[in-house]
């Protein structure tokens, strides 16, 4: 018999909530039933009611989902206290075991609103019919009962104290099962406290969400082809997976302290240092310097997931080589220099829409069947269309989640793609020339970003076109 559980979300990244719940339930081999009730199934709101097979499944979600603040055994919801009490009465089989001698604490809490103390007492008293005989214990209760009043966004605005009190949209009531224990990882992996990071390091919360989208767990092998300073490697390894990383620029993985050829000091590469800090250095399988478009993989079909934040030049990575580097290139061209610092190739501009299609082909080659590709795609919000992502897809690869992190005029989408085919495919050819029928909103993203997403002055803006005359 499935049972209902109340989920309280952390107030962040609404679009990432459902994909995360689904990934973690799939990882643990169960499915979530969502209720056919708009008050209980809207991931944009702070509370959601789920149907699960058992309590353990709800606890698993609380222990792994970064966006779950707490899970509760669900006793009822309603738009008025009368309605809530009616549902709660019918839930009696779930709570009657606590009547005789269980110590308890009762909290009443408002979302987007602070409920005056006096009314909190009234609310608690309105539950008197539950007739709990155990003592009230504020410090170490055996159970915690929580009643939430959800107010609309507008309640956040400054106003007279307690104005509008009681004008809630919905009520939720249940018994606390477990606080979300994955959420504190956001603090553990805080980039500012990390021993090694760079200006392209991904913030901890997002890296953790990405790691959950890969369904990272012990015994899995993962790969980041643009590993940089390793932001996604640490949480993925924390969840038990082995992580392989490569990057065209070895300096990103090593960090500045990397010894100069003239010095005898050997310093540990930065990614290993940070991995040690988190106790996951043993799970960084290996790092290697190479470019995705010229890779040395002997075969494909062995990674469980690919997790990456591709370079899209927002931070001006399209750099010129210094004179010293140009000199190194010249020396390398003329004679091999095994003792020298690694050869650093000049980076070429790589059009983002091509990079994305190539990355998906590359993932199809390297992933096991059912393996996942999880990556960020920056895009211009006003121009974005669903087809932008779908046109980059190839046979055997299917989008299973697409969540926007909105920065106003632009945003980035966390895309999760599953390899649905059992077939083996050859590695991609990474051709430079290709034809396109549709121009996606992420095309020439870097140029658009630096122009502030305004149409270039030399070309007529689409707003000037005679569209208005048609109406």
């Amino acid at each position, binding site marked *: 018999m499935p049972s209902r559980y109340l989920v309280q979300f952390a107030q962040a990244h609404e679009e990432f909530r459902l994909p995360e719940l689904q990934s973690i339930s799939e990882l643990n081999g169960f499915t979530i039933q969502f209720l056919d009730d708009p008050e209980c199934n809207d991931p944009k709101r702070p509370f959601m009611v789920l149907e699960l097979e058992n309590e353990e499944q709800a606890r698993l979600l609380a222990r792994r989902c970064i966006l779950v603040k707490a899970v509760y055994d669900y006793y009822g919801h309603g738009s008025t206290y009368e309605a809530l009490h009616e549902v709660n009465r019918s839930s009696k089989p779930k709570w009657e075991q606590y009547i005789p001698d269980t110590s308890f604490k009762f909290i009443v809490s408002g979302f987007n609103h602070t409920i005056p103390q006096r009314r909190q007492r009234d609310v608690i008293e309105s539950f008197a019919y539950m007739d709990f005989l155990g003592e009230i214990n504020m410090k170490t209760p055996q159970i915690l009962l929580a009643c939430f009043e959800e107010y609309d966004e507008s309640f956040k605005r400054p106003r007279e104290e307690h104005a509008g009190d009681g004008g809630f949209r919905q009520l939720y009531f249940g018994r606390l099962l477990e606080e979300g224990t994955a959420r504190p990882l956001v603090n553990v992996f805080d980039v500012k406290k990390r021993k090694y990071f760079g200006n392209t390091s991904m913030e901890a919360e997002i890296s953790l969400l990405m790691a959950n989208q890969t369904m990272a767990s*012990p*015994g*899995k*092998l993962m790969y980041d082809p643009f590993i940089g300073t390793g932001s996604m490697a640490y949480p993925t390894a924390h969840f038990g997976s*082995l992580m*392989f990383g*490569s990057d*065209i620029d*070895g300096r990103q*993985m*090593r960090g500045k302290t*990397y010894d100069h050829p003239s010095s005898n000091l*050997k*310093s*540990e*590469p930065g990614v*290993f240092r940070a991995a040690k800090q988190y106790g996951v250095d*043993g*799970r*960084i*399988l*290996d*790092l*290697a*310097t*190479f*470019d995705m478009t*010229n*890779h*040395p*993989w*002997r*075969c494909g*079909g*062995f990674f469980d997931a690919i997790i990456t934040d591709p370079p899209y030049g927002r931070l001006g990575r399209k750099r010129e080589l210094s004179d010293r580097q140009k000199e190194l*290139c010249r020396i*390398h*061209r003329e004679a*091999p220099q*095994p003792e020298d610092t*690694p*050869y*650093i*190739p*000049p980076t070429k501009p790589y059009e983002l829409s091509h990079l994305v299609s190539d990355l998906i082909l590359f993932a199809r080659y390297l992933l096991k069947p059912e393996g996942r590709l999880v990556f960020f795609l920056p895009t211009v919000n006003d121009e974005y269309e669903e087809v932008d992502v779908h046109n980059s897809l190839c046979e055997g690869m299917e989008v299973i989640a697409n969540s926007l992190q909105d920065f106003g005029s632009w945003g980035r989408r966390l895309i999760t793609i599953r390899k649905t085919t059992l077939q083996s495919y050859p590695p991609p050819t990474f051709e430079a020339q290709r034809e396109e029928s549709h121009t996606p909103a992420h095309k020439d993203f870097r140029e658009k970003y630096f122009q502030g997403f305004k149409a270039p002055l030399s070309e007529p803006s689409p707003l000037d076109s005679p569209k208005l005359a048609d109406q």
Partner: protein
Amino acid sequence: MVRLITHNLLACHVKGCNANNFPLEFRNVELEIREAEFNPDFVKGFLPKIEWKALVDTARQLGDTSLPEEQPEMLDDDFLKNLHHVLLEIHVEEGAMVCPNCKHEYPIASGIPNMLLAEHEIA
């Protein structure tokens, strides 16, 4: 680093070097043995992807003779533990990997192999 599991997956990728480009030969290696978590399911799952002869030869070259010449049919615990040790616990920290065919040398520094090719080796 450069564990033998990684070594077993990398081939020379110089333009036009398509035959006899695997396995790369280790040169002037500095080894380190570091214990790794043993996960028998992972080792078993990875077995089909291994080029067995390349792994055994390379392990022997580096002084580990625990693996049999032929891949056994029975996967007992001792065998999986030996395989785990060879794949994940032997680290090549310094040295180089050299292509048996075109002799291209991929240097390894602080455990990170440089597999980048210069422009003339790509195009």
